[in-house]
């Protein structure tokens, strides 16, 4: 998962200095450490994998062990300025539940995910094979991903759930995509809020 860290730059631009930030599925803590360094955030990671948790501790960030499928139980409403989930939403079963929880404990949510509607992925399916790419690096039989959705799908989900899309940036393997993102972008990064 190291190839796609350009979403970190986008995320950092949306964070104000000194914010309270929660990073769900923080892995080894690379993003949070970056945000501490460039934005001086008071940051907390959430991780349920013991090895990644240990890596986060070694990386010098705060990390809380929690099973995200069970929500963010115990965290206070509106406590965080931003709640981030970088390239992990597609690996969760309780998609709507976690989005709701992110916007419960955070003023805004930042979500990035691989776009299954990317043209190379479509081409792969047309050729009769499940896509394997830079943004979807796993084979079908060993992927941690459990939800397969496109940028268009996600927009509909937000609409259905009263989630306001405040900003969206889409990328084709690191390059900004301005037109036809659902076809041309491999990864999307969203800034979300609660619809008024």
């Amino acid at each position: 998962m190291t190839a796609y860290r350009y979403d970190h730059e986008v995320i950092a631009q949306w964070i104000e200095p000194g914010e309270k930030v929660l990073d769900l599925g923080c892995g080894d803590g690379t993003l949070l450490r970056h945000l501490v360094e460039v934005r001086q955030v008071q940051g907390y990671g959430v991780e349920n994998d013991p090895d990644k948790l240990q890596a986060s501790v070694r990386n010098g960030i705060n990390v809380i062990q929690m099973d995200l499928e069970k929500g963010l139980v115990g965290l206070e409403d509106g406590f965080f300025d931003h709640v981030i989930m970088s390239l992990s939403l597609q690996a969760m079963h309780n998609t709507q539940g976690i989005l709701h929880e992110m916007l419960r404990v955070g003023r805004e949510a930042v979500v990035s995910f691989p776009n299954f509607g990317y043209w190379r992925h479509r081409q792969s399916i047309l050729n009769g094979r499940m896509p394997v790419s830079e943004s979807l690096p796993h084979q079908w039989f060993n992927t941690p991903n459990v939800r397969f959705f496109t940028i268009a799908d996600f927009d509909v989900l937000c609409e259905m759930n009263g989630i306001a899309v405040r900003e969206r940036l889409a990328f084709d393997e690191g390059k900004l995509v301005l037109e036809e993102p659902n076809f041309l972008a491999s990864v999307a990064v969203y800034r979300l809020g609660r619809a008024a």
Partner: protein
Amino acid sequence: MIQAQSVGVVAPQRADFAEPLKLRSGGQLDNYHLVYETYGTLNAERNNAVLVCHALSGSHHLAGHYADDPHNVGWWDNLIGPGKPLDTRKFFVIGVNNLGGCYGSSGPNQTNPATGKLWGADFPFVTVEDWVESQARLADRLGIARFAAVVGGSLGGMQALSWSLQFPERVGHVAVIAAAPKLTAQNIAFNEVARQAILTDPEFHGGHYYEHGVVPARGLKLARMVGHITYLSDDSMAEKFGRSLRHGRNTYSYDVEFEIESYLRYQGDKFAGYFDANTYLLTTKALDYFDPAFDYGGSLPAALARASADFLVISFTTDWRFSPERSREIVYALLHNKRNVSYADIDCPAGHDSFLLDEARYHALLSAWFDRIEV
């Protein structure tokens, strides 16, 4: 990384204090002494000291062994030593026998200077806060203005937490392991059964059994048996003993039939042979009294606002004495105050006792945490 080693031969030291110590109970110790051990070397900056607080039946003897007693290995020897997670090549580690203990510090089995007789039941009630106060005075004596870390498991974890509240400026990092912010009614209930076992033993003599040349061994044994049940998980007991029968069949007697009975009796007898009943009473009361949120209307977030250390909180999935939920209360209260805190719920089958084991992920996590502490 060198091969993890033992700290080798160690020897306890003693510090005497003439300045009276006011106690939470309203009582006072006019003078007292503490027995302690140290491992590693205090560096020139005096910023590499780590205090390890002990639990109910623990002592100052954390690591290594004694020259005249090579089998008496410190209770946290698997954690502390050169190349171990709490690495004595980097840190100066200190273990203190708490006041009221029975391993040499002022306590019921020591002489009351005012009377020339053993304290017995006259030794005053001591609390977690009193222990921390006395430990701070020992730190003064050793020239340690600020600990790099204070760590402990169970009741030791409560002391570590209390350190962060009583002396926030004197502790950089705090590890609270298999602990709780206060006891539940169920926890207190188990303690009360243990105390009643001791208090109703005919050999207790109101706590002055030393003068009668006896010890309330039956009561202490029962207390330990009850305690031991709470230290293990249902699963680990089932795995270790199940319903195994000593004689392979029911014998219809009150002698040992099930292996678990044999185990509990053995543990109880062993404990009653070396531990002091008055210390057991005092220490369970210290556990019961611990409740830093009490003075804040029961609000733990309000109580922890004073803390400024970097925290590591660890629980164990099968610990039902101090369940993971109790550790999470501490984590959320620290989070509320925007304190630096990491939390792990370690998957280990051994129940409350897990904190004493060298479970790989548990020790790897502690290694990572100790490694990042700059000295």
